[in-house]
């Protein structure tokens, strides 16, 4: 699957276009079928993203070399010394 972000937003726009084209009487049957197949591809790609992709939570730390590095975020390491109580105070 290509870059999913672009894919998703483009897929939405493509689907708008395809459904509108199918609704018009301008196009022939062959073209309609091709559009339909294309539409199904987009719907499936979008659904795959929505249902099968699981977003990761990572933390960007700076290595001793000064390079940024992504590591898995471990909330249990968190020490709340910020006095920050979110929405709940």
């Amino acid at each position, binding site marked *: 699957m290509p870059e999913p972000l672009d894919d998703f*937003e483009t897929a*939405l726009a493509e689907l708008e276009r395809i459904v509108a084209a199918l609704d018009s009487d301008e196009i022939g049957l*062959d073209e309609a079928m091709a*559009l339909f197949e294309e539409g199904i591809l987009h719907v499936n790609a979008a659904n795959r993203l*929505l249902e099968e992709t699981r977003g990761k*939570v990572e933390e*960007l730390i700076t290595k001793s070399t000064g390079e940024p590095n992504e590591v898995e975020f471990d909330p249990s390491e*968190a020490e709340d010394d*910020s006095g920050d109580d*979110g929405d709940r105070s």
Partner: protein
Amino acid sequence: MSPRRQFSLFEGRAPDNAESVLESVSETENSLMDPPERLADGKDPENPIPVSTLNSVTRDLLEGTFHPLWVLGEVTNWRVAASGHRYFSLRDDRAQIQCVLFQGDARRLPTDPEEGMEVCAFGQVSLYPQRGRYQLIVRNLQAKGEGLWRLAFERLRRALQDEGLLDPARKRPLPVVPRRIGIVTSRGGAALRDILTIVRRRASWTSVLVRDCRVQGDGAGVEICSALETLGRHPGVDLIILTRGGGSVEDLWCFNEENVARAVAACPVPVVSAVGHEIDVTIVDLVADVRAPTPSAAAEMAVPDGDSLRARMQRFSAGLVMGLRRRGRDGAKRAGRLEERLRVCMSRRLERDGARWLRLAERLDALSPLRTLRRGYAVPLSPEGSVLRTTGMFEKGEDFRLRVSDGMVHCRTERVEPDGSK
């Protein structure tokens, strides 16, 4: 905010410069003696005391007698020296006193007061021996209410506005479906927990990249700037949420600092700010592309709601099927088969994903009066993909494909037999 509480923030922290200034004039051996001993001389012209002794004794008396005090007055002749120390007078309608605010203490003020502003100054009554000048060494300064905070806020807001940084035209739209969002906050804070919860619930496919930084106290502003810069230019981050939970004016103050405001404006990707509670508007909120009232609300603005996206996909599926049905009888047959393919594909998902797909599948079922036509129908397609409708379109020995309900069959024409021919 009580004067007492504000002072407690600074308690025990002597201003760096104050001590050296005081020490330079007080280190005489006399200063260790009691005033009566140091003034043993001076009773007759034969044994005069030096001016420096008189002044340092007087200063010690003043400092020993007065504990640090809050003094109410109007600020006049406010002057910033090259050293960063502030010199000014406090006065009321009948009197005035010279004051000094050393640079280390001045740095902790949100901003300098305006001329004529009524303030409460906390400090030590003292004497400046070189000049013999009685003065108040000010350690902290407060205007009425949140006067200085408000003043600092207004001053910075005006400056940024004049530069055009608050221009609505600068606000960038957020991506509709971000793949990865960056969060600049304290990693242990509740704000982060709240945001992660919402992102998981609404858009579980979204990735999150956290950059930890302090969000209050001395030096927090610098950390926030550096976190914004690092995360902003990190590849794959589509937007950044800058956030912390509720707190006092002092706690939230780093979000009113000029360097933080500029770091937000300079961030290469859109920034959503969520600082404190809804009523706490900070400079960062004004500069950010979007201001959210709370951390949870920021998450809701940053990621789309998965359910409404799914509903949109359902409408598209339905729209596709409906569109094809309009193509007439031939089209309807094919639509029936393709619809069946779609239905099978969706059912497979339904088995895997359960109830989430139920609505979609039901919707598609409702749309398929045509599926009774599906059994046994197939569409022959030329290698180019056009529909072969008549025997005349087939040629012996040529390849073609049959589109059946679950895929393609590759075929070759053996014989062509139009109706009526034998």
